[in-house]
């Protein structure tokens, strides 16, 4: 029989052949909780009669959505979680490390062939490390913490084969916005999306993370890239693992095969209020913006910030708007700092914050007022996502965000 990567991962964990469509109780290699969904997960764990988590070494905790605590309620949630971490001997990265998904991958908490769950929808990002990773709710997480296993309906796979060379200033974010537009907001519901093809093979880990991060925006249960040299090189410093082969068989049964050629792909912008609304930047160029956010688990890595800095060059950000830049993790922050880019951004007029989710979720800071427009490198532009339901959020790449922050209106990064 031939299998997809996802089928192989489940078959490997369960020691028998498992096909898409089957429902299995699968063992977990890792579980991640953060400050928003964690308190409820812990509550549910206790309600289920939980005393000790299944394996403290496989569970991580961190705070990223509302840090440093922006309200007494948030502070209380943090206190509650810290207590749980201490009691359970779980590693707590607390407020120090950055956005949960970036940190989980960086710390080697997701690796090829593993099954990892996180109480956050963008957990699908760990597919960039060759893991099967999916976002779950708090009650499922309570169950996962107690039993170290969870029910999964093993998903069918949509294979997205990408070819062609990106134009200058066009990259992974533009590609995934184009794919989301093609597949639609629910086109991959309950399915995995496997990104493959020469263009994906040439992408660095940062780009692969951007792709996998947004699988959920098509309803996907997971995004995944078969591990290759790039993956194993990245894993080297993080895990003691011998590289092994893990890929879909060419004649595996896929739900769908789609192909994309990026040679002519223009920078993409998703317009309000859905993620699958991507259009070429030329269609919305000139739209006034009030705030530009460069950061998040989708696009807050050093590579993203480097691209933004390149677009910025010796120019300044428009003083008429707010430009907020937030590296996704402490490691990414340090790389950016050492490269002199933080100084450059600050001097150009940006507000650079410490690693956290920032304005992405509209929970902590950086909210927009009624009538305001945000241009953001994050992953969601739902009505009210970044503040007022009478505001608007557009999504784009770091290059487009930087170009637009210079002019104060949506701008093609190839023209700056």
């Amino acid at each position, binding site marked *: 029989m031939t299998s997809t990567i996802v089928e192989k991962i489940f078959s490997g*964990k*369960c*020691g028998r052949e498992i096909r898409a469509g*089957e*429902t*299995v*109780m*699968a*063992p977990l290699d890792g579980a991640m909780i953060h400050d*928003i*969904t964690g308190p*409820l997960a*812990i*509550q549910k764990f*206790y*309600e*289920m*009669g939980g005393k000790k988590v299944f394996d403290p070494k496989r569970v991580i905790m961190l705070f990223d*959505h*509302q840090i440093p605590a922006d*309200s007494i*309620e*948030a502070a*209380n*949630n943090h*206190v*509650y979680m810290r207590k749980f971490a201490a009691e359970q001997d779980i590693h707590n990265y607390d407020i120090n490390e950055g956005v949960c998904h970036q940190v989980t991958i960086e710390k080697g908490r997701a690796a090829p062939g593993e099954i990892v769950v996180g109480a*956050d*929808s963008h*957990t699908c990002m760990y597919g960039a490390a060759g893991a099967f990773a999916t*976002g*779950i*709710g*708090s*009650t*499922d997480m*309570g169950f996962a913490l*107690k*039993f*170290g*296993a969870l029910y999964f*309906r093993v998903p069918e796979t949509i294979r997205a084969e990408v070819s062609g060379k990106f134009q200058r200033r066009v990259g992974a974010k533009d590609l995934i916005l184009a794919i989301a537009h093609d597949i639609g*907001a*629910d086109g991959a*519901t309950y399915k995995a999306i496997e990104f493959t093809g020469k263009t994906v093979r040439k992408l660095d880990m940062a780009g692969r993370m951007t792709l996998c991060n947004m699988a*959920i925006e098509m*309803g996907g*249960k997971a995004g995944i890239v078969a591990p290759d040299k790039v993956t194993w090189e990245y894993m080297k410093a993080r895990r003691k693992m011998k590289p092994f082969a893990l890929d879909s068989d060419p004649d595996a049964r896929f739900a769908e095969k789609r192909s994309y050629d990026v040679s002519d792909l223009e920078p993409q912008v998703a317009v309000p209020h*859905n993620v699958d609304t991507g259009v070429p930047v030329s269609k919305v160029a000139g739209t006034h913006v009030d705030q530009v956010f460069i950061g998040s688990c989708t696009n807050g890595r050093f590579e993203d910030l480097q691209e933004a800095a390149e677009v910025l060059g010796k120019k300044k950000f428009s003083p008429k708007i707010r430009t907020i830049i937030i590296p996704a993790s402490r490691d990414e922050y340090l790389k950016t700092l050492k490269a002199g880019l933080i100084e450059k951004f600050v001097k150009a007029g940006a507000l650079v914050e410490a690693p956290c989710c920032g304005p992405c*979720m*509209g*929970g902590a800071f950086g*909210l927009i007022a009624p009538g305001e427009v945000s241009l953001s490198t994050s992953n*969601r532009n*739902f*009505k*009210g*996502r970044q503040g*007022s*339901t009478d505001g608007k959020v557009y999504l784009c790449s770091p290059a487009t965000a930087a170009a637009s922050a210079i002019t104060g209106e949506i701008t093609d990064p190839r023209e700056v």
Partner: protein
Amino acid sequence: MAAKKSVPVRKVAPESGPVAKNARAWKFGDDIDTDAIIPGRFLTINNPDELAKHAFEGTRDEYAKKVKRGDVIVGGRNFGCGSSREHAPLALVGGGVKVVVARSFARIFFRNSVNVGVLPIVCPDADKIADGAAIRLDIKQGFIEADNKKYAIEPVPEFMQGIIDAGGLVEYAKGLKETPACTR
């Protein structure tokens, strides 16, 4: 602190079922995301009753004031897309809503709903149900009645029925000593 207490789930009287006798439909469109159901700025709240006060805030402000115990939410395609926040179905539970009917659901919301005791029901004709319609639900016969018109509903996936029958995943899990991995 709210987070330490167990979640007080409002129980609907068993004789009335999850849908009240005088239930009305609260109709929403396609792609209703969990940010619309409960905005991010309220996620420090973990208590369903408190969350319910902010349900659909900014999207449909009258909802939180007027929703009655046993009412039914009706959505279009891809209901509950976006964030994994369980606060979304909990905000419905807090208002006494135990049934959501939609043409289709986003995966995490679907699971979260079942886990916290909200029944997500797929109805291919959900779009035909009008806002404010009088609702009656007959799960055994497999239909929903809206203003005296019957529409077929789909059965819940088999493996989730056990969780529904237990009254949610917490109750289901209490009955388990261990979970033999790799079994059904």
